[in-house]
């Protein structure tokens, strides 16, 4: 049962990763691609981490995975913000 649930979660996560990558390739301008990437990948990673956490031998390692997910969440949100602000500033200047 656990294996079925975790493989389901992992597949869902992969789906969002693929969606994010397609978004990166297809969407026209920077902001929408940034939007797609940050959202889809973070959700994908959340599902992936949840799926992996089920496989972990004990609670501590599972918690470590969740901490990794939180750190990446914050980091990618901040970097997306910085990239968008930089692009916005360059547009207003040029």
């Amino acid at each position: 049962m656990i294996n079925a649930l975790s493989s389901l979660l992992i597949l869902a996560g992969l789906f969002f990763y693929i969606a994010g990558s397609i978004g990166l390739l297809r969407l026209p301008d920077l902001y929408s691609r940034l939007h797609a990437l940050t959202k889809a990948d973070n959700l994908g990673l959340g599902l992936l981490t949840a799926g992996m956490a089920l496989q972990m031998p004990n609670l501590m390692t599972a918690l470590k995975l969740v901490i990794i997910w939180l750190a990446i969440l914050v980091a990618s949100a901040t970097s997306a913000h910085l990239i968008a602000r930089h692009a916005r500033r360059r547009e207003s200047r040029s």
Partner: protein
Amino acid sequence: MNSTSLLVFDGLLLVSIVSLAWAALASIDARRSVILFMAFGLVLALAWARLRAPDVALAEAAIGAGLSGALLLAALHDHDRTAAGVGSSSTQNQTSAGLTTVIRWSVTLLCAALAVGLGWALVHVFDHPANDALARAVAENLDLSGVSNPVTAVLLNFRAYDTLLELAVLLTAVLGIFALGPARAGYQPAGLIFDGLTRWLVPVLILTAAYLLWVGAHAPGGAFQAGATLAAAGVVLRLAGRHQIGLPAARTLHIVLAAGVGMFLLVGFALLATGRAFLGYPPAWAGSLILLIETAAMLAIAATLVSAFVGGQPESVTIDNEE
């Protein structure tokens, strides 16, 4: 995980590594090749984890991809501002187009021949079972080494002399950088959100560095990975516009930079004085001596890598010789 799915995983991983390496080297735009190089470093860390080398995976991710990437991006940052740029260092000799293609093909053939030669020699080596003499010797002497993580035992005890010289290499690099001139201009102060991230991220990085240093004795970790994590905290502070980034003033900065090699020498001379071999820790004291040396090495590595990122002495600080 039966062997075929493992094989598929290895195949995919290696194809992505080689193609990333090719893309990083073949792309003309400097920024693109640096980003691809950082991606190459991260996927490489995954390969090291696959080859059951977690210590090396940590170091590759932290130093190979992370800090080298930061140094390269900082170089790109200057590249955009200075006209000459980091582009071609050697003068473009105006050899005719025909000649360059001949050179290009002959070098490619030479490298292909080298790859085939290396591969053939290695196939020849992997026929007979691996020579385990050294691995067995490490295992037998592990309990004498004062740590239970074999890699740390080799790095800090059996081959401690290598690590001493390696810290000297780091020191030479940073002294060379200081001799080249003043530091780069700092970055403008961070906006609200980045400042919030820094306020939260830097303490976590420092805590992780301390954890990595402590865990290195019995699990993957150690002075190099801890030093790189601490350096990452310094880099984040520098990017957030804080010029002093916790680096001490000139005199104490030199002491911290020299701490790694200095502690090694102190322990070595002390052991020599008591009649033991240089860096031949008494088994009872080995664990604590190694931790002492690793702490000093961590501080030295972190200060060295951050000073390299800063590109010289932090501006407010200059060597106070009386000239």
